[in-house]
């Protein structure tokens, strides 16, 4: 391991952390604005022009708020839970290629922190660990709402994880690799070679699982504001709650990247246009996350479990079998 590689990796990690922490903040602004416009409201309007500086105001609020650890909570677990959510969200990003590789000052940069050979498996696994945040935070909070939320986190987790894994198995079989760069190169020939055309069922299943994974609205069960206050976040305040928030939004961005890379062609042939196209796809998927929140109602936890185990999992298995048969002949 030479020094240049080490420096490059550290710089990439720092940039990723900074960019996506900021994006998480901007994502909340974007979400509030989009939801407001869809509901004929204006949304935040007062901090700066069109409240563009809302991130700064929210950041100052979160950082300066008192850090309360309530009575009767299990202190160490209560304190570590938000860190788990935020850290695993960013750890998952290590195997995601955010851009095609480019050359700067004669030095070739690969905008992926580590192109490990188990890429997508690692991403799904680490994102799954992120569920420990709500689970532990909810159980340690000494609050009934949080406890319900923790139970829901466990039930949601065992439901969607099997679907996301099985739905991705068919694309993995077609590509023959777990690295997202290989996924991208498989679809580099153009729009016609995108995985969404050859694996539409897997695409729909994975998007549904992604909604469950990030806890977005059709499956907004774990931190369901209107049923169980904020679920696991009820007892949290200040920056600990902010870490949950950053983790959730960073997760949304990363899963958008994963969907775009696996099913929607990623950055294509690696040109500048391809990189911009990837950003466009990710923006659209992120917008779709917000869009559904304005349009669709929530399902109940038992409905989600029923959906995942009795409907989506059989479909995923059938999809794998059909893919295998087609590939065999």
């Amino acid at each position: 391991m030479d020094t240049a590689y080490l420096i490059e990796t550290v710089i990439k990690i720092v940039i990723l952390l900074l960019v996506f922490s900021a994006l998480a903040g901007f994502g909340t602004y974007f979400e509030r604005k989009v939801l407001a416009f869809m509901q004929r409201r204006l949304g935040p309007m007062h901090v700066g022009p069109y409240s563009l500086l809302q991130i700064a105001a929210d950041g100052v609020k979160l950082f300066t708020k008192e850090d309360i650890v309530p009575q009767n909570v299990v202190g160490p677990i209560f304190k570590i839970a938000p860190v788990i959510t935020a850290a695993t969200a960013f750890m998952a990003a290590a195997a995601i290629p955010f851009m095609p590789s480019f050359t700067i000052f004669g030095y070739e940069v690969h905008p992926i922190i580590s192109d490990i050979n188990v890429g997508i498996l690692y991403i799904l696994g680490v994102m799954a660990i992120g569920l420990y945040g709500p689970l532990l935070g909810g159980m340690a909070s000494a609050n009934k709402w949080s406890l319900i939320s923790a139970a829901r986190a466990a039930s949601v987790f065992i439901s969607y994880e099997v679907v996301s894994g099985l739905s991705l198995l068919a694309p993995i079989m077609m590509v023959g690799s777990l690295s997202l760069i290989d996924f991208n190169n498989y679809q580099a020939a153009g729009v016609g070679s995108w995985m969404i055309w050859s694996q539409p069922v897997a695409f729909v299943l994975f998007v549904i699982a992604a909604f469950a994974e990030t806890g977005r609205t059709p499956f907004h069960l774990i931190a369901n504001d209107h049923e169980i206050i904020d679920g696991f976040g009820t007892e949290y305040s200040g920056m600990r709650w902010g870490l949950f928030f950053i983790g959730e939004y960073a997760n949304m961005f990363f899963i958008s990247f994963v969907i775009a890379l696996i099913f929607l062609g990623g950055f294509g042939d690696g040109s500048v246009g391809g990189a911009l196209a990837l950003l466009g796809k990710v923006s659209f998927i992120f917008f779709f996350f917000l869009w559904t929140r304005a349009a669709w109602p929530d399902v109940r936890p038992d409905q989600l479990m029923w959906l995942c185990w009795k409907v989506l999992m059989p479909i995923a298995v059938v999809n794998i079998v059909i893919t295998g048969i087609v590939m065999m002949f």
Partner: protein
Amino acid sequence: MSFEKFKDRNVGEDGYYMVDIEDYPETGWGKFKQVASRSLKGELFVGLWVVLREMFKFDIHTVQYPKEKLPIGPRYRAVHKMLRLFESGTERCIGCGLCEKICISDCIRMDTKYDENSRKEVTEYSINLGRCIFCGYCAEVCPELAIVHGGRYENASEQRAHFVEFEDMLTPIDALKAGQQEEFPGFGAIIPGSDKSVKKTPLAY
């Protein structure tokens, strides 16, 4: 028309119809069919389309309250106003004390004296807005249309003494000269066309 029409409280009889709701599915297969039909019929995309259409229409209904205010009805009874005579600019209040007398929450207090023209002059006039129930009796009883209710409903204040002095409620003389005092069309104001209903007092008896 008989009273029967008004006594009939059963308003749900005519013009209402039952919404057609399918029976809840009992079996697993029924539930699956319901999910499949709801997923594949495109109902979800109808919802997506509706909110997207509203977003592009940008038909925003927000009132940015401290900057924008909705018009308030003329009969709304907010903080009182004291009006001036349009011609001379003197205050309309003649110090008759009727408002003080009629006030059912006893929140109006006034003192009067005779000035050098032997005209009654109001020396002290205050309304305790903490007690005022904004019933509008004072405006209704006032024979000179001097005290009326305004539309200023923002009566949160740092000081109890705010809003209650006669001078605060009185139309400023420069505002009157600028033609900003409007005859109050609301509570306590004369009914439109009331001139016609005025009759001479019969002096026959």
